[in-house]
């Protein structure tokens, strides 16, 4: 494997010796989570087309451990909302989010998902953060696959660095409560 170009994820900081490696559990779990995030693509319009490109061989989101798209919310880690969400669609997005197990992250891709975009009108939800908490926003109309990958890498950073118990913290619970979740 000496001539392999495959790069293995860097080990977290820790103490290394002959036959052992010690680090904190947070770091280890974060490393595992960040490099095997399963996205649930919720694609409704043109940003979804950009996602298809992101997912396919040229940009290959699989390089970030996300090649396993989870079309079941129960097994997904990242909800990627791509495209215009109408008010009629909003309860569906929320239900998908509720079906996801913790830890879960939300990536809002494109101007429409982030803020309603050009569709400032009676039928369109003015940003998905009105119904579910969003971790990373990717602006653009539509964003290029590079931008979506950058947003995904930001999610990876979150997964790597947040405490494994962050989801039990009062701030996080208050955030969910502000959306009427749990």
């Amino acid at each position, binding site marked *: 494997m000496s001539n392999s170009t495959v790069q293995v994820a860097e080990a977290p900081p820790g103490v290394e010796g002959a036959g052992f490696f010690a680090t904190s559990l947070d770091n280890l779990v974060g490393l595992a989570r960040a490099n095997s995030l399963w996205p649930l693509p919720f694609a409704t319009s043109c940003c979804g087309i950009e996602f298809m490109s992101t997912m396919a061989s040229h940009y290959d989101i699989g390089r970030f451990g996300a090649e396993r798209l989870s079309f079941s919310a129960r097994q997904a880690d990242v909800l990627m909302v791509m495209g215009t969400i*109408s*008010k*009629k669609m909003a309860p569906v997005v929320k239900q998908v989010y509720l079906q996801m197990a913790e830890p879960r992250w939300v990536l809002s891709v494109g101007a429409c998902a982030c*803020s*309603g975009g050009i569709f*400032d*009108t*009676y*039928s*369109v939800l*003015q940003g998905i953060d*009105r119904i579910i908490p969003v971790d990373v926003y990717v602006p653009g109309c539509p964003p290029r696959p590079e931008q979506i990958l950058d947003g995904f890498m930001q999610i990876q950073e979150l997964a790597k660095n947040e405490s494994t118990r962050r989801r039990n913290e009062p701030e996080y619970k208050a955030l969910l409560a502000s959306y009427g979740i749990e």
Partner: protein
Amino acid sequence: MENQQITDALQAQFGADAVYGVTESHGILQFTTGVDNIVPMLHFLYAHPEFKFQFLTDLAGIHFPDAKGQELGVIYHVHSLENNVRLMIKAYAPIDAPHFPTITGLYAAANWMEREAFDFYGILFDGHPNLTRILNMDEMDYHPMRKEYPLEDATRHDKIDELFGR
């Protein structure tokens, strides 16, 4: 089959007052009629041995806030496939009582179109089998295409008029 033939036949059947505002656009005959005449007129055009307007292309609502007493309108587009002739019929009702008779008894396709006109304009189609919202969310409490409502989303706070030159 000439457009004049159609107006003549309709005026002979329903009276000279029943067909007014007759114009022609791109060769398509357009006219206005009373709300009460709509259903018998469409039935007549459907069953007529020569005209055979047996296809409902479209049914749409419209709102003219300045036309007092006839603010809300319904426009029927019918097509005679055999003669390849199209026809546009308009009718208006006051916004206080926007009642139109349903045409679902003749054209089953009118079912969803009438629901759409109800959804967006609040036009009430008497006799419709299921007059509920079709496109907007069920919780919506107004009819958004009426001109008195703003097009923009009322819940949005980040759009400052000053920045948009208003």
